[in-house]
């Protein structure tokens, strides 16, 4: 595989985006980045700007208002990058299917922007931090 992907697997920097979530998954993500779960041993670091990020952790069903912003954030992320859909709502709209404010699950929004996006799914409501670590490591190992 190319050296860019190899380096990305060794040091994935994450940026957290909330696309209309109830904040449950957001709490679990912030929980994940505390010293207790120590994701720094995988090289994962929380960065404050999407331009520095390799992985976007997107939570929430994509509401119509958040879809515009999510596309803008994806455009601002330097490629190559991976999008992680965290939680049942992000994976496939969860309990909000067919609701008036939903613009599609997150992968549909991202694929409108970039059909070749690399997307990984971590289901759960909310997924436990251990599940998120397992999902991220599995996704990086099949890149």
């Amino acid at each position, binding site marked *: 595989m190319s050296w860019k992907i190899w380096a990305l697997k*060794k040091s994935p920097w994450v940026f957290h985006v909330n696309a209309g979530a109830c904040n449950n998954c957001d709490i679990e993500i912030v929980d994940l980045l505390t010293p207790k779960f*120590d994701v*720094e041993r995988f090289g994962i670091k929380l960065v404050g700007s999407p331009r*520095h990020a390799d992985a976007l952790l997107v939570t929430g069903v994509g509401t119509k208002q958040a879809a515009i912003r999510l596309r803008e954030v994806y455009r601002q992320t330097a490629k190559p990058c991976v999008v992680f859909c965290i939680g049942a709502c992000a994976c496939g709209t969860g309990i909000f299917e067919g609701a008036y404010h939903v613009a599609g699950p997150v992968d549909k929004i991202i694929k409108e922007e970039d059909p070749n996006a690399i997307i990984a799914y971590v289901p759960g409501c909310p997924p436990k931090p251990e599940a998120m670590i397992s999902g991220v490591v599995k996704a990086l190992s099949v890149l």
Partner: protein
Amino acid sequence: MSVPLNVLFWVVVIPGTIVLGLVASWIVRKVSALVQYRVGPPIFQPFYDVAKLMGKEILIPEQAQQTVFMAAPLVGLAGLLLLSIMLWRITITGTAYLGDIVVAIYLMVLPSLALILGSSASASPHAAVGTSREMKLIMSYELPLVLAFIVVIIKTGGQLSLAAIAERAPIFSISGFLAFLVALLCVQAKLGFVPFDIAEAETELGSGVLMEYSGALLALWKLSQATMLVVLPLFLVMVFLGGFGTAGWPLLWGIGKYVLMLVLVILIKNTNPRMRIDQAMKFFWVYCGLTLAFAITLATIGNYCGIGWL
């Protein structure tokens, strides 16, 4: 020095300093992890970070000032590498010259200045806030840093040459110790570590000063931060702690002093919360300024009366 060794020096010094800097940044992360009772990153992690950043695309905002935006990290890194060459030459071959400490202080300002220029060329409101805070911080700590070095110059009787300064250890005296404490905190602010990392990580949700940088330019900023971790503690060792030997016991002793500086920086980093910008300005202007005024008085008296421990 003989010609082959000379050539070897010129080939090895710049990549060597950068590699040493990345290893030092790993030491910082690993010790911080151990202090927080967790396993830290593996030893090659900073190298992976830089390699990965080199492989990402460079995104430049549409309204950014492109020349300054792209040149700023280069200027910062160039200034630091020049300073490191100077310091290595002084320790290894002893080619100091009169006034080189002034050149060193001048070169140490370059990375901070480059940070301000780069972030204000970013055309982003977050970066603008970060720029204004970084400017206030720099204006606050530069003067105490220079005054701390002036204390040392007074104590050595007015010598402006680093080799002469590096022979003594001014820390074993009251004014030298006070100046060392102030200089350590100013170095902490220059490195951008807690409690003074106001500019970069301060909107922890917005990444402040370096917000619009990505790809290879961000890699250059990380490299200059890593190089600062080598150069600034080395400079402190040479000015306050009596220099760096070249062979045998003095070399090991010198490495030990450098590691002590690094450990002090890491400990201060891990045990303090971040300051607000107005608290930091008050700290540097009032507390450090008064301490240094006191130290300069003591040093002048000591020099005039010939008392060494003042």
